[in-house]
């Protein structure tokens, strides 16, 4: 390197006489530069650096791997750079300590990932660096080793074109559980068709008849509040099922129901449900289009309006079924003050205490989902309750044995067993 520099400068001197004085100066100073270069030495090559497509993703990330260097001095760090063919230039992705980011840190289960602590593994989200890029776009990656801030080694650039994958192998445990549940589901449906099922009693749902009967005797209306969830919320769908059964009974008793709505789509669906119930009860003449009415798509405006209606009309019964947030207590407390018999059900667990304290009966989450089937008494629908109970049994048994196995593993240092158990029951 120094010899080459001198030759180069001499040739320049020969060809460019006008720069002779400058060349002499360069020759004198190049000595010290060359000495410094000799002292630092050229950057070594980081061995074993590879870039591969990140498995189980949409094709927006790459995985960089290289062996851990056990002899790395204290203060050694890695820097990762990525370059896109389109943008050009190197973009620094991350910098980390030599002991960090090993294969064991990649959050994938044992059946989908074989990374160990003996290798570094870094996931690079390319869309965060380069935005949306076309399929087949090529990227070049490299890693640099720094020792106390000075470049010590650098990998050879690795080129990769990330691809979208077609299956999340890491979610295999979830898929197997789902397939098991579907199998049990169809078994329960066919079993219900043939033999019928015993279903445990749910006090809150048994009280619906009592509430409607009370309203009929008192000649006061019933308020059915389907909450503030959209139609894509499971609790709102369940609420529509319950509304169907409640309004059928209301029609049979020739009572009067009011359903104030927060969501126009829910209102449209509930209109159909109530109309159908009146038809099935043989009372289509009693159906009025204003049973379901839109109030407001704003949470507190809705609560204020429904509170006002309850305060003025003093209903005999109030049903709060669906998705509720802060308005749960605003509604239930006004209903309790008005003296109505109140039945609530929601799957928002942090609103349940408010309903417990302000309502006569409360359906907890899954009971809300089961209510439509329970009230309809159709064997096909009732079978779903059995599946729910079986599912809970499986979870209870799994939690029990999982707890024992993990405790034993932790006690005796069986890390492999702990990892297997934890991975099996983890969601990815």
């Amino acid at each position, binding site marked *: 390197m120094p010899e080459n520099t001198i030759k180069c400068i001499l040739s320049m001197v020969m060809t460019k006489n006008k720069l002779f004085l400058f060349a002499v100066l360069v020759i004198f100073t190049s000595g010290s530069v060359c000495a410094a270069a000799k002292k630092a030495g050229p950057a070594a090559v980081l061995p074993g650096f590879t870039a591969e497509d990140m498995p189980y993703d*949409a094709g927006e990330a790459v995985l960089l791997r290289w062996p851990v260097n056990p002899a790395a001095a204290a203060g050694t760090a890695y820097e990762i750079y990525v370059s896109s063919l389109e943008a050009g230039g190197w973009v620094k992705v991350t910098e980390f300590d030599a002991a960090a980011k090993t294969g064991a840190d990649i959050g994938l289960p044992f059946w989908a990932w074989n990374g160990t602590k003996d290798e570094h593994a870094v996931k690079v989200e390319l869309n965060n660096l380069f935005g949306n890029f076309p399929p087949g776009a090529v990227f070049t990656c490299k890693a640099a080793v720094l020792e106390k801030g000075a470049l010590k080694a650098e990998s050879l650039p690795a080129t990769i074109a990330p691809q*979208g*994958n077609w*299956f*999340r192998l890491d*979610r295999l445990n*979830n898929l197997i559980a789902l397939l098991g*549940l579907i199998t049990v*589901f169809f078994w329960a449906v066919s079993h219900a068709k043939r033999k019928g099922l015993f279903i445990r009693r749910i006090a809150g749902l048994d009280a619906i008849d009592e509430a409607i009967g009370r309203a009929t005797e008192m000649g006061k209306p019933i308020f059915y509040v389907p909450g503030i969830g959209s139609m894509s919320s*499971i609790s709102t*769908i*369940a609420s*529509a*099922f319950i509304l169907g059964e409640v309004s059928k009974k209301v029609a049979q008793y020739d009572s009067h129901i009011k359903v104030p*709505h927060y*969501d*126009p*789509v829910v*209102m449209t669906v509930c209109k*159909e*449900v109530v*109309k*159908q119930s009146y038809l*099935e009860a043989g009372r289509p003449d009693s159906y009025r289009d*204003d049973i*379901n*009415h*839109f109030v407001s*798509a*704003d*949470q*507190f*405006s809705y*609560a*204020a309006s429904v509170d*006002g209606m309850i305060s*003025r009309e003093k209903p005999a019964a109030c049903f709060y079924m669906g998705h509720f947030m802060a308005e749960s*207590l*605003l509604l239930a407390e006004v209903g*309790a003050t008005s003296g109505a018999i109140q039945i609530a059900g929601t*799957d928002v*667990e*942090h609103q*349940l205490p408010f309903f417990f*304290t*302000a309502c006569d009966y409360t359906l*907890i*989450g*899954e009971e*809300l*989902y*089961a209510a*439509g089937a329970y009230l*309809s008494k159709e064997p096909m*629908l009732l079978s*779903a309750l059995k599946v*729910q109970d079986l*599912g*809970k049994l499986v*979870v209870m048994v799994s939690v029990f044995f999982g707890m024992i196995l993990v405790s034993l593993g932790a006690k005796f240092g069986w890390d492999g067993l702990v990892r297997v158990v934890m991975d099996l029951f983890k969601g990815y």
Partner: protein
Amino acid sequence: MKLIKKQIPLAIVFITGVLTLVSYYVPHKMSVNYIETINKWENIVVAFAFLLGLVSLFFSHYNKISRKVDGWGYSIFVFIGFLAMVVPALVSQGKQMTDTGFTALGWSYKFIYTSLSGTMFAVLAFYIVSTAYRSFRIRSLQAFVLFIAAFILILGKVPLGQIIWDWVLGWTGRGVNDVIEWIMQVPAVAGKRGIMIGISIGAIVTSLKIIFGIEKQYMGKD
């Protein structure tokens, strides 16, 4: 007729449900794009349905006013409230702020809408007190446990309660904050997780019922 009213909707529900379910296990860009498209469609449907809601609201309150039913005067405020927000919005061209300060819409939003919403939310505090009073009436063992847990939490959140705790139970070596943390982290979380597990299984089963057409009450029965 049955084809249009029953079979085609059921087929749409089945295909959409299965595709959405499968997309959870397929990370490919096509799957991501499908979910994004479905979400956009949902937003479009909601936007159109909102017009239906508005018509329903006006129709319902117009009827109350025209029939002079009890409390019909309140219905006038629906129209006044609507105009109080929509007219400034049209005048201000949807902008809440300009270089000179609030527009008419911004003023209405801040001094009418936000104030009213805040008032409703503030009422919640009073309702919590009256509900707490009702739940503190010990009528069963469960109510007693609830009372004890709530009492400790209330006690621990005020300085006077902490002083009382230290004075009476300081010899135990456990501060009231330790007990509160244990209540919140152990029994409360255990109960919450139990409910959440039940909810999750119930949600899966309800979804399966809808996807496979076993539950079809949302579209009317045969």
